[in-house]
C-alpha cells in the first residue's frame, strides 16, 4: 500500500477542496479564496504550489459551470470575450509577478484581498434598469431570460474601456493569488458597467478559465504545478461546486455571505500573521 501519511494528506486536501468548492459556490466567490488559506495555513503547503493548484481548480469550475451558463444565455459572450483580452493579459502579469515575489509578500496581499472581499460580502448588490437612450460608441445592449420571473431582462453594457482597464487588475490578482478574479469582475460589471448580477456572475465564471490558464502556464514552467496536489484539489473543487450549486437554492444565501465575511476575516488575520512571521 501507499505511504499512509501521504494518502491521509491527499484525503484531507480532497475534503478541504470539496468544502471550499461548495462554500464558494453557495456564497458566489469561487473556491480559491478559501482553499489557498486552508492549504497554506492548516496543511503547510507552500503558498506558490497552493496558488497554482487553486488556479487549476478555477479552470475546472469555470469550464464546467460555463456550459450551463452559455446554454441558458446568462453568460454574455461578447462582453466576456472583450474583458477576457484584458483579464488574460493581467493574468500573465500576475503569474509573472508571483515568480518574483516572496511567499510572505503574497500572503500579505492575500490577507488584504480577503479583507476587501469580507467587506463586499457584507454589502448588498442591486440591479439598475437600462437607460432609454441609444447605446453610445463604447456601449451595447443585450438581454437574458430571468428564470425566477420568466421575463426577458434588457440591459446596457456601458463604460467598457474603464471596465477593461479594471479587468487587467482583476486578471493580475487572479494570477498572483490563485483566486478566480470574480471578486473584482462581478462588482465591476454590475456596479460600474450596468450588467445585471446574474449575467455578471455567469460572465465572470465564463472568463475565469482562460484567465487562469494565462497565469497557470507560468507557474507550470517554473515547476510550481504539482500534479499530485492538483489532483485532489481539482476533483474536490469540482465535486464541491456541484454540491454547492444544488445547496444554494435551499440555503439562506445572505446569512452564508455574512458567515463567509467572518471566515474571510479569520483567514486574513492568519495570512497576515504568516506573512509577518515568514
Amino acid at each position, binding site marked *: 500500500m501507499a505511504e499512509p501519511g501521504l494518502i491521509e494528506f*491527499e484525503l484531507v486536501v*480532497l475534503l478541504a477542496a470539496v468544502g471550499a468548492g461548495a462554500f464558494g459556490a453557495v456564497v458566489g466567490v469561487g473556491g480559491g479564496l478559501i482553499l489557498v488559506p486552508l492549504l497554506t495555513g492548516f496543511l503547510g503547503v507552500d503558498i506558490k504550489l497552493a496558488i497554482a493548484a487553486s488556479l487549476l481548480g478555477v479552470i475546472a469550475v469555470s469550464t464546467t459551470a460555463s*456550459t450551463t451558463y452559455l*446554454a441558458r444565455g446568462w453568460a454574455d459572450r461578447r462582453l466576456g*470575450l472583450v474583458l477576457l483580452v484584458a483579464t*488574460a*493579459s493581467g493574468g500573465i502579469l500576475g503569474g509573472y509577478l508571483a515568480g518574483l515575489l516572496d511567499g510572505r509578500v503574497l500572503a500579505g496581499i492575500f490577507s488584504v484581498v480577503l479583507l476587501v472581499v469580507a467587506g463586499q460580502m457584507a454589502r448588498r448588490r442591486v440591479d439598475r434598469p437600462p437607460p432609454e437612450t441609444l447605446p453610445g460608441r463604447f456601449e451595447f445592449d443585450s438581454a437574458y431570460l430571468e428564470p425566477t420571473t420568466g421575463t426577458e431582462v434588457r440591459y446596457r453594457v456601458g463604460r467598457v474601456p474603464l471596465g477593461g482597464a479594471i479587468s487587467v487588475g482583476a486578471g493580475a490578482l487572479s494570477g498572483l493569488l490563485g483566486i478566480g478574479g470574480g471578486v473584482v469582475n462581478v462588482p465591476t460589471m454590475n456596479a460600474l458597467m450596468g450588467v445585471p448580477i446574474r449575467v455578471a456572475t455567469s460572465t465572470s465564471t465564463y472568463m475565469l478559465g482562460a484567465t487562469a490558464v494565462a497565469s497557470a502556464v507560468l507557474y507550470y514552467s517554473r515547476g510550481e504545478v504539482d500534479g499530485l496536489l492538483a489532483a485532489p484539489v481539482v476533483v474536490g473543487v469540482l465535486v464541491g461546486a456541484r454540491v454547492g450549486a444544488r445547496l444554494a437554492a435551499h440555503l439562506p444565501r445572505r446569512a452564508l455571505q455574512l458567515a463567509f465575511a467572518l471566515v474571510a476575516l479569520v483567514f486574513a488575520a492568519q495570512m497576515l500573521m504568516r506573512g509577518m512571521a515568514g
Partner: protein
Amino acid sequence: MIEPGLVAPERRWTNLAYTVGTTAAAACLLVGLLLQAAGQPADAGDPLDLGAIAGDLGRLRPWGWTMLGVIVLLLTPPAGLLATFVELRAFEPRVALLGLTVMGVLALAVVVALR
C-alpha cells in the same frame, strides 16, 4: 427570446470542448489519485519533460497521470475559444475575432513562460 435549457447551435461546440476537456482531465487526475492509493510510487519528475510524463502513463505511475490531467485541463479553455471562433465566425465575425485575440494572449503567456 431565449428558451431555458436550449443549447443554441452556436454554443454547441464550445460546450462540447468544455465538457470533453474537463471530463478527460478529471478522469486522468482521478486515475492518478487511485494509483497513488493503490500504492504505486508517487515520485514527481520534471513537468516540462513530456517524455517522462508519457513514460509514467505506461508504467501506471500517479505523477504522470496527474500531469496529463493538468495538461488537458490547461488546454480546455483554449479549445473552447477555438470552438467559439469556429461557431461564431459566420454569425458574429467581430465576436469570433475576439476569441482569436484571447487565444493570441494565451499564446503570449506560453512564450513568456518558456523564455
